[in-house]
C-alpha cells in the first residue's frame, strides 16, 4: 500500500510531454541547428561577393572566329541585298532622267537601310552549337582534376551546377524589314507613276514605321521567332550542398599558394578547355575565423568587463534595498512609492537613455563637462566618448541604472516568500539585522538569487541595445563593442557575411550555456540533491521487499 502512495503519477501525464517536446524542438532546437548549418557554409547576404560567376570562362574566346564569321555573314548579306536591289531596279533605266532620280532615291534609301541592318548582324559562333535549352538548368561537368599538382589526373563527373543564362535576341533583318519593304516596292511598282512622289514618301515613312514597329515588337516576341541568339553570359552556381565550395576563376596569380586549391580543367562542348581553380572550404573555417578574429576577442572581453562592472553594484544595491525594504523591525515610510521609482528606469527605452546620456556626456558642451569645468575639477572638457574606460564605465552605469530596480523587485519577492517563523526563530536566537540578513535571508532566497544571477548573466552576455545606440562599434576603437554588436556588424551590415555571423552566434550560444551551467552547478541545492538520492534508495529498498 505504501508503494502506491509514493508513486502517484497521473495516467495521462505523458500526453503533456508531447507539446513540451514539440515546443522545444520548434522554438529552441530548430533555430539553433539552422544557425549551426549556416555557420558551415559560405552563405552571404549579397550572394555574389565570393561567388565568381564563370561568365568569362563559358564565353568562348573566339573573337577571331567570330570576326571571320561575321565578315562572311555580312558579305553574304550584302550580296543578297544587292541582288534584291537589282531586281527592283530592273525596269528602270539610268539614262532616263525620271528613272535616274528614282534610282538615286532608291539607292540612298537602300544604302541607309543596309547600314543599319549590318549593324544588327551579330553572331556567336558557339550559339549555333549550344542550343539554349541545353544551357539552362543543370550542368554536369566532366572535370579532370590535378589534385596534388603531381600530374596525376583524376576524372570526376559529379559537379552539378545550376546555370542562369542571359541572351540577347536579334531578328534576322533580312527576314523582316526588307520583307515589308519588298511588299511596298511591289505595290508601288504595280500602282503606276501618278502618285509616285507621294507614295514614295509614304512608302518611306511606312517602311520606317514598320521597322520601328518590328523593333518594338521584338521585346514581346518569344525566342522561337528569332533567328540568332547572342550569348551574353552564363552564370554557374554550385547547387547547394551541406559543404559549399568557393570557386576561383583566374584570380590565382603565378606564385600564389595553390596547395589548398584543386586545379580543375573544364572541357566545353565546343572542345575548348578552360582552367578553373576550385578551393575547398575548410570544415570549421567560419568558426576559426570568428575565434581568431581580433574584434571578436575584443568584443568578448568588453562584454565580460562591462557586465562585471555593471552587475556587482547592481546586485549590491539590490540586496541593500531588499534588506531595507523587508526589514521586519523598521518600516520605511512610502516604501511602495520607492519601489516604483526604483523600478522606473527599467521602463525607459534604451534609445531614450542613449540620447539622454549623449547629451549629458557630450563634448565640448555637455551637462557633465559643464559641471566639471565650471566647478574647476577639470581645466577643460573631457572627451568621454573617445576614451576607452570612460566609455565602458558609462555604458556599465547605464545598464546598472536600468536593472537594479528589477533585480531588487525580484529579490524582495523572494524574501517575502520566506516563512516568518524562520525570522522569529532568528530573532529569538538573538541575531541582529546584519546577521539575520546574511545568515538567514540570503540562504533562504538561494533559488531566487540563482534565477537573478543566471538571467543577468544571459542578458549581460547578450548586451546590445545600450552600447549600440550610445556609441556603436567604431567608437573609441570598439571600446564598448559587445558580442551581439560584433555579430550584427559582420552579418547585418557591410558585407552581410551571414555565414560568419551565424558561426559567431553559435559560439555565443555555447559560451552562454557553458557559463550558465557553471552558475547552476555552483549554486545547486546540495541538500536537496542528497535528499533525492536518499529517497531513491529508499524506494529501491521498498520495491525489493
Amino acid at each position, binding site marked *: 500500500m505504501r508503494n502506491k502512495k509514493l508513486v502517484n503519477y497521473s495516467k495521462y501525464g505523458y500526453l503533456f510531454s508531447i*507539446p513540451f517536446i514539440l515546443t522545444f524542438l*520548434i522554438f529552441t532546437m530548430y533555430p539553433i541547428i539552422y544557425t549551426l548549418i549556416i555557420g558551415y557554409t559560405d552563405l552571404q*547576404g549579397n*550572394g555574389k561577393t565570393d561567388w565568381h560567376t564563370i561568365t568569362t570562362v563559358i564565353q568562348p574566346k573566339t573573337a577571331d572566329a567570330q570576326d571571320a564569321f561575321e565578315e562572311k555573314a555580312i558579305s553574304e548579306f550584302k550580296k543578297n541585298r544587292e541582288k534584291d536591289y537589282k531586281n527592283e531596279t530592273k525596269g528602270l533605266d539610268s539614262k532616263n532622267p525620271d528613272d535616274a532620280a528614282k534610282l538615286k532615291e532608291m539607292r540612298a534609301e537602300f544604302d541607309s537601310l543596309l547600314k543599319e541592318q549590318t549593324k544588327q548582324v551579330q553572331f556567336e559562333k558557339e550559339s549555333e552549337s549550344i542550343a539554349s535549352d541545353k544551357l539552362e538548368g543543370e550542368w554536369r561537368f566532366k572535370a579532370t582534376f590535378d589534385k596534388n599538382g603531381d600530374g596525376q589526373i583524376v576524372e570526376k563527373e559529379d559537379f552539378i551546377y545550376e546555370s542562369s543564362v542571359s541572351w540577347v535576341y536579334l531578328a534576322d533583318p533580312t527576314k523582316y524589314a526588307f520583307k515589308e519593304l519588298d511588299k511596298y516596292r511591289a505595290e508601288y511598282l504595280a500602282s503606276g507613276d501618278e502618285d509616285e512622289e507621294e507614295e514614295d514618301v509614304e512608302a518611306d515613312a511606312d517602311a520606317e514605321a514598320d521597322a520601328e514597329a518590328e523593333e518594338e515588337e521584338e521585346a514581346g516576341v518569344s525566342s522561337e521567332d528569332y533567328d540568332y541568339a547572342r550569348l551574353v553570359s552564363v552564370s554557374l552556381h554550385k547547387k547547394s550542398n551541406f559543404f559549399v565550395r568557393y570557386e576561383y576563376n583566374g*584570380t590565382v596569380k603565378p606564385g600564389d599558394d595553390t596547395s589548398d586549391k584543386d586545379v580543375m580543367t573544364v572541357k566545353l562542348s565546343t572542345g575548348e578547355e578552360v582552367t578553373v581553380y576550385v578551393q575547398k572550404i575548410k570544415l570549421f573555417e567560419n568558426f576559426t575565423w570568428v575565434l581568431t578574429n581580433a574584434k571578436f576577442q575584443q568584443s568578448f572581453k568588453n562584454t565580460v568587463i562591462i557586465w562585471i562592472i555593471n552587475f556587482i553594484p547592481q546586485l549590491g544595491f539590490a540586496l541593500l534595498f531588499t534588506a531595507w525594504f523587508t526589514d521586519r523591525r523598521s518600516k520605511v515610510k512610502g516604501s511602495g512609492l520607492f519601489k516604483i521609482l526604483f523600478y522606473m528606469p527599467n521602463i525607459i527605452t534604451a534609445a531614450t537613455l542613449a540620447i539622454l546620456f549623449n547629451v549629458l556626456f557630450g563634448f565640448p558642451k555637455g551637462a557633465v563637462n559643464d559641471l566639471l569645468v565650471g566647478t574647476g575639477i577639470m581645466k577643460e572638457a573631457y572627451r568621454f566618448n573617445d576614451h576607452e574606460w570612460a566609455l565602458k564605465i558609462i555604458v556599465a552605469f547605464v545598464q546598472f541604472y536600468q536593472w537594479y530596480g528589477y533585480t531588487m523587485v525580484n529579490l524582495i519577492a523572494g524574501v517575502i516568500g520566506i516563512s516568518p517563523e524562520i525570522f522569529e526563530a532568528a530573532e529569538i536566537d538573538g541575531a541582529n539585522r546584519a546577521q539575520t540578513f546574511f545568515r538567514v535571508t540570503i540562504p533562504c532566497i538561494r533559488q531566487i538569487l540563482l534565477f537573478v544571477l543566471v538571467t543577468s548573466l544571459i542578458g549581460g552576455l547578450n548586451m546590445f541595445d545600450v552600447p549600440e545606440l550610445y556609441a556603436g562599434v*567604431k567608437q573609441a576603437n*570598439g571600446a564598448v563593442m559587445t558580442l551581439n554588436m560584433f555579430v550584427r556588424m559582420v552579418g547585418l551590415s557591410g558585407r552581410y557575411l551571414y555565414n560568419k555571423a551565424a558561426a559567431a552566434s553559435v559560439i555565443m550560444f555555447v559560451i552562454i550555456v557553458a557559463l550558465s551551467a557553471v552558475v547552476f552547478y555552483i549554486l545547486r541545492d546540495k541538500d536537496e540533491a542528497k535528499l533525492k538520492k536518499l529517497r531513491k534508495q529508499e524506494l529501491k529498498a521498498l520495491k525489493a521487499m
Partner: protein
Amino acid sequence: MKKVIASVLSVAMVAAIAAGCNKTDPTDTQASQASGESQQGGGDETDPSGETEETQPQYGSGSEVINLWSFTNEIPNMVAKYIELNPEFGQKYTVKCTIVATDGGAYQQAIDQALAGGADVDMYAAEAAFVLKYAQGDMAEYAATYKDLGIDVDTKVAEAEIAPYTIDIGSRDGEIVALGYQATGGAMIYRASIAKDVFGTDDPDKIEEIVGAGSGNWDKFWDAAAQLKAKGYKVVAGGDDMWNVCEKAASKAWLDKDNNIVIAPEREAYFDIYKKLIDDDLSKDTGSWNEAWYAEMGAGAEANTFCFFGPAWLINYVMAGQAGDTVGDWRVCTPPVGFFWGGTWVLANKDTDQAEGVAEIIEWITLDTSETGLQYLWANDKMGNGAKDTVASAVVMGKSDGTLDFCGGQNVFEKFIPGNANATGKAMTQYDEDINGFFKDAASKYAHGELDKDAAIQQFKDNVTSAFAL
C-alpha cells in the same frame, strides 16, 4: 479533461509546424532560404508600428501602382508635385511611397531585403554614402538601365549637361542605371562679419585669394586660420568638417580590386590636418551632427567659427534651420580643395512592370531641363520649401537664379557650379561609410596624441580587415 487539453495542445503544435513548413521550401537553395527568412525578419523591422520611422504616403488615384522606396520625403514630394503639374499621370497611376530613415543602416537593410526577396519595388533611391552598392556593387543586378526603361539616356544626358560624376557613379558597365538630381559640389561657406573683422573684406573673390581657393592645398588656409586665431576666432568647428573635403577629394578608392586596403594620400593627409587643428587649437573640436556643431552655425555668444564646408544642401537644409540671427551674414566661395558631399540617386527595379510610368517620373526628375522640369523647380525655390539647391544639369543651373537671402543676396550658384567640376565617383567603394568610420576614429586617436601615426594606421587596417573579412 487533461486528455482533452493535452491533445488540443498537440494538434496546435503540429499545425504550427505545418504552417511553418509552407513558408520555407526545403528544396530551395540555401541562399533563397536565407533571404526568405531574413525577409520575414525584415518584415518585423519595417512594421509601421515598430521603432524605425516608416511612413507610407500615397499619391495619385490611378489603377496602376508604382512602389517607390526612399529614405526622406524629398522624392515623394517631387512625385506629388509632378502629379500636381500632370493630373493625367495621377489619374493613371497611384504611387505608393515607403520611407525608411537611414539611421543605423535601417534603410539599406529594408531595401536589400525587399529587392532580394522579390517584393514589389518599382523605384528606389540611394544616397551617396551607399549608392555605389546599388549602382555598381553587390545590389547592382537589381537595377534597370535607363535605356531599358525607354529613356533616351545618351542624348538627353548630353543635352542637359549632367555633371559627369553623377553619371560615373550611376553607371554599371557603362550603362546608366542611376542618376542624381542634385549636384553636390562643395564650397566654403563663411561668416561675412568675421571675415570683415579679421581680413578687412567679405568679398568672396578676395576671400578666395586669402584662403588659396582652388589651389589644391591648405597652405594659405592655415595662414588665414592663424590670423583668425589671433583675433579669437576658430577657423572650423571640428575635424569632421575638414574630413568631408579630404575624403571626397581622394584620388583612389579605399579598396583596390584585390580587396587590399589603399589609403589615398588626400585621406592620409587628414591625419595631419586633424592633428594641426588640435595642436594649434584652431577648432572647437566638435564632432558633426551634434548640438555643439549646430550651435556654431547660429548666433549664440560662443559661436565663433569662421567657415563650414558643404554643398548647397548644407545651407538649405541644415544651416538655415540653425542660423537664427546670422541669416544674411554668410557668403560662399570656392574651397581650397575641391570636393563633393552627398546626393541622392534614383534607380528603377529591372523587374518592374510599370516601366513606362517609372520612366516618366525618372526622366522628369533627372533629365528634364524645361521650366516645368523638376531640376528647374528645385533650383529656383519653386517646390515651396524655401530652398534653392544646385542640380545636376548644368543647363538648368545656367538659367536659374541662385540669389539667396541666407547669403546676403549673393548668387551662390556661381560658386557651386565650379565646385561640381571637382566631383568624381572614381574613388568610392560600396563600404565607404563603415571604412570612413574606422578611419576617423584612428585619426582622432592620432590627433589627440594617444597613438603615433603608424600605430593609428595599423589600428585602422586591423579594424577594417577584422570587420569585413578581407
